[in-house]
């Protein structure tokens, strides 16, 4: 199977200038490769840097050092030091990210939020609408909510909208941060199914989940992220 992501020597440090320049070395010298169709779970206690890693892989956080290479349209592309438009292009077609929290753009209907990744890739409106509606139904979001903006939805509902949005299109690489948190059993199982379908279709996944059932259902391997001591600059 193809390698879809190669990470070497990845380091991430936060320097808090507002707090006397405190430095938090969250990631240090991380190495791993990811193959298409496999699911890697990040393993470690809170504060170990799991979410930080996902965000760094997505380009949301700026790495301090190292290399993140990603298979994009047949070629391995280096993400560190790339132009914003390259990162945005990667996010449009290659790397998907399901965060814990749905970032709500006001006044955009639930259906439009879900359809957006497909529309960004040029999917026709009717096709995108049909697929979005199917996903929302599957995830138990009632039809009467589809035209409403998700800002007023419950946490669980927002999360399911987020999930639906992520599975609208095929992602070669999908990053999932607690995809089943705050979901009941039935919905959790739907999400696990969706994840398995994506894996079968060849997506590579990196996921964080504190829920043992989810982990057991989807994980192919684990990346152990031993928590680092918070180090203070002297």
């Amino acid at each position, binding site marked *: 199977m193809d390698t879809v992501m190669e990470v070497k020597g990845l380091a991430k440090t936060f*320097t808090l*200038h507002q707090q006397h320049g405190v430095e938090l070395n969250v990631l240090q010298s991380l190495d791993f490769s990811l193959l298409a169709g496999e699911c890697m779970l990040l393993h470690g206690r809170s504060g170990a840097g799991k979410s930080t890693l996902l965000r760094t892989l997505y*380009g*949301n*956080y700026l790495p301090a050092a190292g290399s993140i290479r990603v298979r994009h349209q047949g070629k391995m592309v280096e993400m560190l030091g790339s132009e914003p*438009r390259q990162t*945005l292009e990667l996010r449009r077609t290659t790397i998907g990210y399901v965060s814990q929290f749905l970032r709500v753009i*006001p*006044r955009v209907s639930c259906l439009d939020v879900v359809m957006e990744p497909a529309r960004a890739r040029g999917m026709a409106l009717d096709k995108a609408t049909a697929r979005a509606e199917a996903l929302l139904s599957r995830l138990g979001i009632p039809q009467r909510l589809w035209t409403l903006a998700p800002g007023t939805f419950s946490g669980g509902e927002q999360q399911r909208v987020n999930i639906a949005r992520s599975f609208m299109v095929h992602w070669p690489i999908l990053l999932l941060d607690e995809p089943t948190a705050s979901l009941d059993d039935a919905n959790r199982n739907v999400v696990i199914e969706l994840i398995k379908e994506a894996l079968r279709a060849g997506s590579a996944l990196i996921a964080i989940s504190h829920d043992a059932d989810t982990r057991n259902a989807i994980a192919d391997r684990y990346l152990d992220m031993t928590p680092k001591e918070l180090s203070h600059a002297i």
Partner: protein
Amino acid sequence: MNPLLSVRDLTLLYGPEKGCQGVSFDLYPGEVLGIVGESGSGKSTLLSVLSGRNRPDCGQVFYHCPQTGSIDLYQASEAERRNLLRTQWGFVEQNPRDGLRMNVSAGANIGERLMAQGVRHYGQLRQAGLQWLKQVEIDPSRIDDLPRTFSGGMQQRLQIARNLVSSPKLMFMDEPTGGLDVSVQAHLLDLLRRIVRELQLAVVIVTHDLAVARLLADRLMVMRRSRVVEAGLTDQILDDPQHAYSQLLVSSVLQP
């Protein structure tokens, strides 16, 4: 893909650290670049130099048009600059009164660019006016009304229509939502998002409002005291600011 706008080492200073200096970047078709910073950071100066309104002390602005080739903005003649600003570029002023002719009708405001390009058919001009009023969600029956009878938000949308009628490739916006009521701002932002997406516009937008920047911009430049202190992907700058000043800026934003 070639950049649409290339800026090299652009400098215009009115005094020590007043204005802009050493600014370089490339802007690609369809990219929205936000310039953020506090008052006096030099963002409006930078915008005025980028848009051909103020000659820089040094540095260059290149505009690469696929049809007509590259022009060095300040080596070109005043006629070429004006023509560019009237056809391929647009400029949305913070105060719509600065960007509109207040004493002629909305239809005339929208049609002016077309008339300047030699359109001499009244019927066509009127059609364009009606079409663009609809695009910016102004009731088309107001085509003969004077802008002074419009609300602030409507005036701003009219200003946008007036610019878009010549199908520009690049728009400059100076705090387009400043001075508007919050709900009116929201409406305008929705319009801008839609239009930028549909028309694949490249935009340089100056704003002090980080929420506007997050909503509209693909990438940001943070300015402080005439210099760009940080630049990059919008969500990266706002979620993981590196520079001390950027961190201060982001942490200062009130969350309601």
